[in-house]
C-alpha cells in the first residue's frame, strides 16, 4: 500500500523497533513507527511500504473539510444565480 491513512490500534516492540498495528477501515497490518515518535494509539498515520511516514493532523483535516463545505455552498449558490 502506498501513502494510505490508517488508525494505530496497538503499539508494540519488535526486536527493539517501535511497531504499530494499523487498522485501514477493517484491513489490519503492522507498520514501523520509528519515524513518527509522536504517534499514539488512536492516531491516524500515513503508511508507505511498511513504514508510517507521518501522523495525520485531525484538526487540520477538520478545517479542510469545513473549507470544502464552504466551496460547495459557494458553487451551489453560483449555480442558482445562473438559473
Amino acid at each position, binding site marked *: 500500500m502506498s*501513502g*494510505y491513512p490508517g488508525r494505530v490500534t496497538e503499539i508494540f516492540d519488535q526486536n527493539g523497533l517501535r511497531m504499530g498495528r494499523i487498522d485501514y477501515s477493517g484491513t489490519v497490518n503492522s507498520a*514501523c513507527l520509528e519515524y513518527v515518535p509522536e504517534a499514539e494509539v488512536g492516531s491516524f498515520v500515513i503508511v508507505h511500504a*511498511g513504514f508510517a*511516514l507521518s501522523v495525520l493532523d485531525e484538526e487540520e483535516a477538520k478545517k479542510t473539510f469545513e473549507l470544502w463545505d464552504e466551496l460547495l455552498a459557494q458553487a451551489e449558490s453560483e449555480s442558482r444565480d445562473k438559473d
Partner: protein
Amino acid sequence: MKYLDEFRNPAVARSLLAEIKAVTTRPWVIMEICGGQTHSLIKNGIDQLLPKEIELVHGPGCPVCVTPLELIDKALAIAALKDVIFTSFGDMLRVPGSKKDLFLVKSEGGDIRIVYSPLDALTLARNNPTKKVVFFAVGFETTTPNTAMAVWQASREGLTNFFLLVAHVLVPPAMMALLDSPENRVQAYLAAGHVCTVTGWRQYEPIAEKYKVPIVVTGFEPTDLLEGILMAVRQLENGEARVETNTLAW
C-alpha cells in the same frame, strides 16, 4: 475508508473541474511525476474529463520503470545463486531483464520471496542464518529511509547475512533531466505529496525558479489531483512559476 473517501467527493470534483474549464484559455502540458498519481488519474477517468487544452504527460516516478536494465540483470543473477534468498516488492518480479524476469528465475528454483517492507527481509535474514538474504532496494525518497532503517537494525542486531542490491533514486534530478531535454514539452509539474512528506518541498524551489515551471505538490486522490491541476493551470495562465501545495489537503 476514513480520510480517503472524503477526497473522492463527486461534488467537490465537479466544482474543481468546472473551475479548471473556466480558467483554461490555451493548451498546456502538465506532467504528474509519480506513478501513483498516474494510476489515480486514469482509474478515476480524470484525463478524460479535463478540457481538451490540458494534456497530461505521465512522469518517471515509478520504480518499476526507472530501475536500469543492468540492475535488473544483477538481481536475476543474484536471485539464481544457491545460498541466496532474494527479496523484493512484488511489482519488481515481472520487470524484464535482458533475458528473463524474477518470476522465471523463481520457477527455475531461485528462492525469491515477495516482501511488503525491508523489515520483512530482515526477519528472513534473522530466521535463516545459513542463507544470504538480499533485499532489492528500489524506489525514491519514500522507500529509502525504510531501507536505511533495515540496515541500521541489521547492524544493531549484528546480522551478517543481510545484503542490499541498491537501486534507490531521487526525484529532482529526473525532473531536471526532462526539462533539460531539447524535446521537452512539459510546462508544469504535479509533484508527489508522499515524497514531500519525507523531504519537504523546498528542494523544488530552485527547479521552479531556474526552469520557470509551476510545481504543485498533490496527494493521490481525485480531488487532490484536480485541485493540483487547477493550481498549475492558474499559474500557467498568469505566467507564474512557483512551488505550491494543494490547499484542500493538509
